[in-house]
């Protein structure tokens, strides 16, 4: 249960509780934990650890129906090749996914294999929920030799391989090509500086009558790229990798853009700040560009009749990196970790499986297979995003460290601070100071 008499908390103080209350609580907890064991004993009858060598693995991922189909096919293929292994497949849209995953984990029965992304990887790894995959990597059961090193590295938390990249993506600036062509405006290009981007957007606003660019000041992935281009980072060890001055500069850059009319009004910016694909301003026609992930191109395309183009974020493209769009992780308490590792290996390295899965989770992590998939792609929007990402891959910088515990709070605080500045409720410097202060509290606690 809880520690015996006194517990020190992070700030060094020591709390003591009256003995009586401790006893009561301990009694209560004991009751909760032991009493139900009687029931649990009965429930454990259908344990997966059957003696006949048959293994049933649970696997949980988020995504849409298309991903569900592809993943099911790939897993069925595995079962076909390994008839003793079957799967309990659960999938969910991203709404509620992490709530459910956390609840299952708390209940002691998270799935053997689960999908996770960089927003939560460190949270789960820091609590020892994920299995360190290093030993499988070392033994060769998990073949990572064909992975881009930086992509592999982006799954390492505190020296442990917490998740294996299920696919790669990177930041992409999507623009409305039809709109630009119609108004005789130039297309933006990779390598334009941020100032040039704003100037270009201002020109678009004036000529096309539609704001040139979504204001990404609330978007952590844009802020992150910009920081890296300034020689900073989002995190450095267990601390923030930036200062109030950096944030102020970032907010001022976009205040300037807003003042020049390069961006939409704050309420429209807010609408576009939602992560939903269907709310991106470039498809709702409320701005000429949106800040997304490259692999979202095909889905964006489905929401608009206009032709879209995609390039890197402004500034030096080496600010971008091979980001794992999502990872496969194994629950540390899994009874069949060896089999689970083999399944993950299959999903990322087996030519047939990778072919089935395609680019649904991002570009395949295995470079050999990525080439094959790229050549086979037929959907034009898909081809476009593959081409761009392959071009960018040559310019990628080193991958940063995986976002640390408290990252979700940092993200929401950035949105709040940036929107405060956008709505004119705070000056950039003021909003920046509030943001940094809130982040520090979030990371410590």
């Amino acid at each position: 249960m809880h520690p015996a008499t006194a517990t020190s908390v992070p700030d060094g103080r020591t709390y003591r509780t009256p003995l009586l209350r401790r006893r009561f609580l301990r009694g209560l907890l004991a009751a909760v934990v032991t009493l139900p064991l009687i029931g649990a004993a009965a429930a454990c009858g259908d344990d997966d650890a059957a003696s006949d060598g048959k293994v049933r693995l649970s696997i949980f991922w988020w995504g849409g129906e298309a991903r569900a189909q592809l993943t099911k096919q790939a897993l069925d293929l595995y079962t076909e090749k390994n008839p003793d292994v079957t799967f309990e497949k659960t999938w969910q849209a991203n709404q509620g996914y992490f709530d459910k995953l956390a609840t299952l984990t708390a209940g002691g029965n998270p799935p053997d294999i689960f999908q996770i992304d960089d927003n939560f990887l460190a949270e789960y790894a820091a609590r020892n929920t994920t299995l360190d995959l290093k030993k499988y990597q070392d033994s060769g059961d998990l073949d990572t030799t064909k992975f881009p090193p930086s992509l592999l590295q982006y799954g390492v938390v505190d020296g442990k391989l917490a998740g294996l990249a299920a696919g790669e993506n990177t930041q992409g600036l999507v623009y409305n090509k039809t709109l630009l062509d119609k108004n005789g405006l130039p297309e933006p290009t990779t390598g334009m500086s941020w100032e040039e981007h704003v100037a270009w957007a201002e020109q678009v606003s004036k000529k096309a009558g539609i704001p040139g660019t979504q204001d990404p000041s609330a978007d952590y992935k844009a802020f992150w790229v910009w920081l890296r281009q300034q020689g900073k980072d989002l995190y450095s060890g267990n601390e923030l990798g930036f200062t109030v001055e950096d944030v102020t500069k970032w907010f001022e850059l976009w205040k300037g853009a807003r003042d020049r009319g390069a961006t939409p009004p704050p309420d429209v910016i807010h609408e576009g700040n939602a992560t939903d694909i269907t709310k991106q301003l470039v498809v709702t026609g409320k701005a000429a560009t949106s800040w997304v992930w490259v692999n979202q191109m095909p889905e964006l395309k489905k929401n608009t009749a206009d032709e879209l183009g995609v390039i890197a974020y402004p500034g030096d493209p080496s600010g971008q990196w091979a980001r794992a769009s999502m990872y496969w992780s194994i629950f540390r308490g899994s009874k069949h970790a060896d089999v689970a590792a083999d399944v993950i290996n299959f999903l990322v390295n087996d030519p047939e499986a990778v072919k089935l899965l395609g680019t649904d989770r991002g570009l395949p992590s295995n470079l050999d297979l990525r080439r094959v998939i790229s050549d086979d792609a037929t959907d034009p929007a898909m081809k476009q995003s593959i081409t761009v990402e392959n071009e960018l891959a040559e310019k990628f910088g080193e991958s940063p460290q995986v976002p640390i515990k408290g990252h979700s709070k940092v993200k929401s605080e950035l949105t709040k601070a940036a929107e405060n500045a956008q709505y004119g409720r705070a000056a950039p410097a003021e909003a920046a100071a509030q943001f940094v202060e809130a982040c520090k509290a979030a990371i410590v606690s």
Partner: protein
Amino acid sequence: MALTTAPDPTRRGTGSVRPPAPRGGTGRIRHGEGLAGYVFLSPWLVGLMAITAIPMLLSLYLSFTNYDILTPWSEVEWVGLANYERMFISDPSWWHSVRVTLNFALIAVPLKLAAALGVALLLNRAWRGVGLFRGLFYLPSLLGGSVALAIVWVNMFNREGAFNSFLALFGIEGKPWVNDPDWALETLMVLAIWQFGAPMVIFLAGLKQVPTELYEAAAVDGAGKFRQFVNVTLPMLSPVIFFNLVLETINGFQGFTAAFVLSNGTGGPVDSTLMYTLNLYITGFTDLEMGYASAMAWVFLIAIAIITVIFFSTGRFWVHYSDGEDR
């Protein structure tokens, strides 16, 4: 009041919280009734002990720990009052969510109840098609908190939304309501009021319980419709009004779904719709600070309990029970 039930002089209300129990001299429990009481109560008692109480007490315990959902119980650390200190002393967003919630509840709850009662009275009489009308008025409540609702509402109340088109008919320039931090909470209130179906149904059911002979008696006494409303309907409906008031207040303070759905679970823009329970949910599940979230929940429970006690203690001045108790 023109009611047939005679007050029972042996049971007189005394102060404090007024659950329906008689007080004071009524310690006598009629033979067999005590046992019968527990027999009827047994399913609830079992449910309380086995299902409700343990998680509640656990959450109370967790409120003194740094529980983060992912860490096993055995490694949870006791932090004493740290969560409570943080809430009151160093968490501006907690105070902010308290203000947002008060603001919401104080305006939305009375308006919603008024709308529900008004429409219930309009729909009380039996006439052809009344069932359809009741159903139509209930429809908005059927939507609950589905994803579709979020999309619908945003498109009613954003810059290009239907509401602004309506205002434009009168030459009024609207605002980007849902996306304007000064107005987003008001859109949420409109949504809450729009879903007035639940209290409306309860009012309707309550109106059906008013014995018709009371109206006949009042009519014989020469009371007009208005007098009948004041002297018969209102007092006879008061237990139901009381119920709706208590429950809608609790619901208003707990208002989660609408805020969650409309703001994509963020409480935005700029925390303008950060209702208390939404803040609590984000803290517990997104930021994984369930210990702190539990502390928030218990402070909430105490605050609401105080409000509820106040309601119950004022209830005896205006709530009329036909069972002759608590007057």
